[in-house]
Every structure is written in structure tokens, then in C-alpha cells.
């Protein structure tokens, strides 16, 4: 039985090309990168915000934080927090790769506040480096469970800029590069319309209908003309994933 998280992880890992540099958040993003390195992208370089360049995950010893000792074993470089973010700002990193609590139709992410910002109904953990990663990397991937409470018309709070109000909203705000390119969920892979920057379903997870995706989304989705279906995860991918987690 493949779990939704496993499905998303495998789907995401396949989108990472070899030879690139990815600035990854902890959790599914990091594990998807590690899986990609064991498959099509052996020379993918993983960067963590704690100051790691060239992360090498060891099966069963996954770090819980981008800043801890376990993440620093057998890496290419161990440098400062500012250094890795400034390298992103310079333009060295192909991919940002994030999870999220809430995302809207223009790819804006909320990791801060549910409800009224002055008197929040839930105070979430906050941006960490997510705002910076999505502001500064060449493109940013987002992975998250597909639920109506997560996919909303307009996020309660723009912690991390996607395309802001859509169109050229990003450039207008002074964000002269980057943007959210792809959202990976347990139901689909989505991207953004070239001009309007509205979220669009590109491909469905195996056995998932468009109707199911639409029902799990709190706003009207665009649908790609050539809407496809994603291939099933291979047993080898699932096996590697479970080995990484130390649960195989």
C-alpha cells in the first residue's frame, strides 16, 4: 500500500533533473531529492538552509531539521546560513523546493496565520527560509497534500510570494526573477498559466479523476489542454523511499 506522502515524494523526485542545484526544505522535499539522487539525478546537489551544500542522506538517519548535525555528515560544504541564501540571491540555485500549509490560485503560500492576522485563529510556525527560497531561486517546486483547506482562492496571509495578484504581479513587486513552477500533490501535478499565472492541472495521479482534483481545490482550476496521467510509482522507487526512511 503506497501512502499519499510516498506518492507525492516519488512524483516530485521524478521532476528533478540531474546536474542541478536544489535548495530544499526539510521533510518530503529533502527526501524526494535524496530519492532523485539514487535514480535519475546522481549529481543533483542538495542545499539546506542551515548552511549545507551537497547533502547526502543516510538511510534511517534522516534529519528533522535543516540545521542539525545529522544533516552535516559527508557533505560538500558546511557554511553559514546567510551564505546559502545569498548564493540563491546571486542565482546559483535551479530549484527551490518547499512544503506548504496553504496555497492559493496564484501560488502564494501561507505558513504564518490562519484567520485574521491581528488575532489569528491559528498561529503557524512561520516562513523560515521559504519566503527567501521562493523569492530567490530560479524556479520553485511546492509539494503538499491536496485538500480544500490547503488550496484556497486567496491565502489568509502571503508568507511566501507566488505570483501575488497574478500576471506580472511578481515583477511589479520588485521580484525580477523566479516563481513557483510546479505544485505536486497526492492527486495531481499542477503548474501556472504562462500569462495569467493561474494554477492549472497538468497531470493526474494514477486513478484520480479531474473531478476529484476539482473537489479538493477551493478555487477554479485551469486544466491543461493535454491533461495527462502520471505513471505509477515503481516498486524500486517505493523500496528506496522506505529504505531512506528506515522502514523497509
Amino acid at each position, binding site marked *: 500500500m503506497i501512502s499519499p506522502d510516498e506518492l507525492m515524494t516519488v512524483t516530485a523526485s521524478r521532476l528533478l533533473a540531474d546536474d542541478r542545484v536544489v535548495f530544499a526544505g526539510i521533510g518530503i522535499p529533502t527526501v524526494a531529492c535524496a530519492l532523485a539522487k539514487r535514480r535519475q539525478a546522481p549529481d543533483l546537489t542538495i542545499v539546506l538552509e542551515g548552511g549545507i551544500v551537497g547533502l547526502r542522506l543516510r538511510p534511517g538517519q534522516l534529519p528533522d531539521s535543516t540545521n542539525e548535525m545529522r544533516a552535516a555528515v559527508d557533505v560538500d560544504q558546511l557554511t553559514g546560513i546567510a551564505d546559502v541564501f545569498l548564493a540563491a540571491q546571486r542565482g546559483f540555485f535551479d530549484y527551490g523546493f518547499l512544503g506548504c500549509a496553504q496555497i492559493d490560485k496564484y501560488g502564494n503560500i501561507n505558513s504564518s496565520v490562519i484567520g485574521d492576522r491581528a488575532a489569528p485563529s491559528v498561529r503557524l510556525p512561520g516562513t523560515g527560509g521559504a519566503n527567501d527560497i521562493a523569492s530567490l531561486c530560479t524556479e520553485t517546486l511546492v509539494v503538499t497534500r491536496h485538500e480544500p483547506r490547503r488550496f484556497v482562492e486567496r491565502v489568509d496571509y502571503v508568507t511566501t510570494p507566488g505570483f501575488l495578484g497574478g500576471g506580472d504581479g*511578481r515583477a511589479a513587486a520588485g521580484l525580477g526573477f523566479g516563481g513557483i513552477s510546479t505544485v505536486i500533490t497526492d492527486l495531481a501535478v499542477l503548474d501556472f498559466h504562462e500569462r495569467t499565472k493561474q494554477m492549472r492541472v497538468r497531470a493526474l495521479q494514477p486513478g484520480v479523476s479531474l473531478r476529484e482534483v476539482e473537489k479538493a481545490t477551493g478555487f477554479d482550476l485551469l486544466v491543461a489542454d493535454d491533461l495527462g496521467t502520471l505513471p505509477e510509482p515503481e516498486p524500486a522507487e517505493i523500496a528506496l523511499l522506505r529504505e531512506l526512511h528506515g522502514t523497509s
Partner: protein
Amino acid sequence: MSGARADLEAHRRPMRDKVVSAASAVQLVADGDHVAIGGTNYSRTPMALVFALLRGKAKGLTVSRPLSCFEAELLLVTGTASTLMTSWVGIGHGWGLARVVRHHVERGLAEYQEWSHLAMAMRYRAGAMGVPFLPTHTMLGSDLALDTGARTVECPYTGTTLLAVPALHPDVTFVHVHRADRYGNAQIDGYPFLDVDMVHAARRVVLSAERIVEPEELRQAPRETLIPHFAVDAVVHAPFGCYPHECYGEYEADADHVAEYMRAVRGEGGASAGELACDGARRYVAEHVLAHEDFGGFVTSVEPARRDSLRERARELMPR
């Protein structure tokens, strides 16, 4: 001349023996001060100094930390801090949301100032560099920029709009280091985090150190000395000084201890859940902070075998 520079010119910290107790060092902190806490999340947190602060008299502090962990909860629940400035607060990624912080922020009992991680870094760096702001391409267009009141600046050459991150000069910075001499020259192994900028930016600096060594020992590897004596007011000897958090190459975080804290704050039951969480955090402070005379007492209360195993795990990870 900026106030922070004027303060520094009037406050020199020559090569003197600066070794004091944690209780004495935290007297540098006055009510309402801005205290910056080094490390991030559960890594190299200067916990011995935080515990001394909890034991001390200062109240109503603004506490800044790049990524915050349960120390933020203890500071809030005791009234030591009333404002958090951070990019993130959680009890480790595996341990769940910060319930006490949630309660304080959601009820308006504390102020929460959220900057992005890079913006926090650039705030300390601008302070460390002695400039009133630094330009960056981050945080633009987001509600973080709106809520923090961050302003923009135009490049006088290209006309590009950048976010101007304002310099931060903490009244007091706490940092835990691996090795310091009595004058405050100090070396950090592994992740440097934002600690060096945080030290140079601050008006007063307290270091806690796993080991106090002779100056001659540090001079054998001068490039590893990241903090110079003239930036340091006080040095506190604090072996196991980040416990229950980790110290790179020395000991791992004690997940069991933090899980115990998480159980204490896991008050269930609707409207009163936040209050129950606060009660749990207060019990934690009573039991692990106030019940001991100092941090050494707290460390000693942890079974030696458990401490040994945390050290051993660190040694296994770091072959050198």
C-alpha cells in the same frame, strides 16, 4: 553617529578575565531589552544562559532568534519575554507546533514579529557591518514586508527596487561556543549559523562555552577563531550548555527530554488547551529550571548514561 556606534565607542571590552557565572552574566539584561539568542531551532542553543535568564529578574524582553524552539515558550510563559522576533518557531520538525507560543500570539498576550530567515540574517549583518540597512531581493511583495514595515530602496546605478532590511543591534546577544579563552576569543565548530553577525551587531555579548581554554590554544588555529575578545563582555563556562539541544560534534539533542516537554504542554480540551499548555510549560520551568541552583544542577539531574549516549551519538556522526 548612530546610537549603536556611540554606545560601542563608549563601551570598550579589553583583554580582561571575563569569566563569570551565568547568573552574574544575565544581569547585563535589563527589563524590556532586546536579547538575541544564537544557534537555530534545537542546535547550539545557549540553553545555560536562557535558563539563567528564566531564573533572573528581567521581564518584558524582545527575544530575537533566526529559528526558535521551545526556549521561546519558556521565555513567554514566565513573562521574561513579551515579543518574539523570528522567522520560524516550532518544537523541532518532528515534535509539533509550539502550543504555548500559539496561545500567547492567538490571544494577543505576546507580539510576534515575523521576518524571513534571510531578512533576519541581513538585519544582524547590517548591524555587524555598521550600516543602517542592507539591500536584498527577498521578502518583496509579501505580507511579511507589509507587517514588518520594511521599506524599499532604489539602486542609484540601476534603478532596481530592493527591500531595505534595517540594521538590528540587540541590547544583549547570547551565543554558545565550543571553546573560548578567558578574554572572550572564541571558536565554533560546525554550523556557524548567524552567531558571528549577532555578536558584532550587539551592544553587549555573553558567551557560554563548552570549554574554557588557554589563549595559546586558540592561537594554534586562528582562522577558527570567529569571535574576537573586543566584542565580548562575559564568558560563562557551561559544559553540556545546550542541553537538551544539540552541540555540534559534542552531543545530540535529547529527543526524549523534549518529548517529555511536549507531553507536558499537550493540554487537550477546546478553549482551555492553551492554558493547559502554559501550565505544562510552567511545571517544566519549575522542575527543570527553578528546582536547580544553576544549569550544572540541571545537567547533573540527567542520568549519566543518557548524557553519555548523546555524546556517543555525536562522536559517531562526526568522525573527526
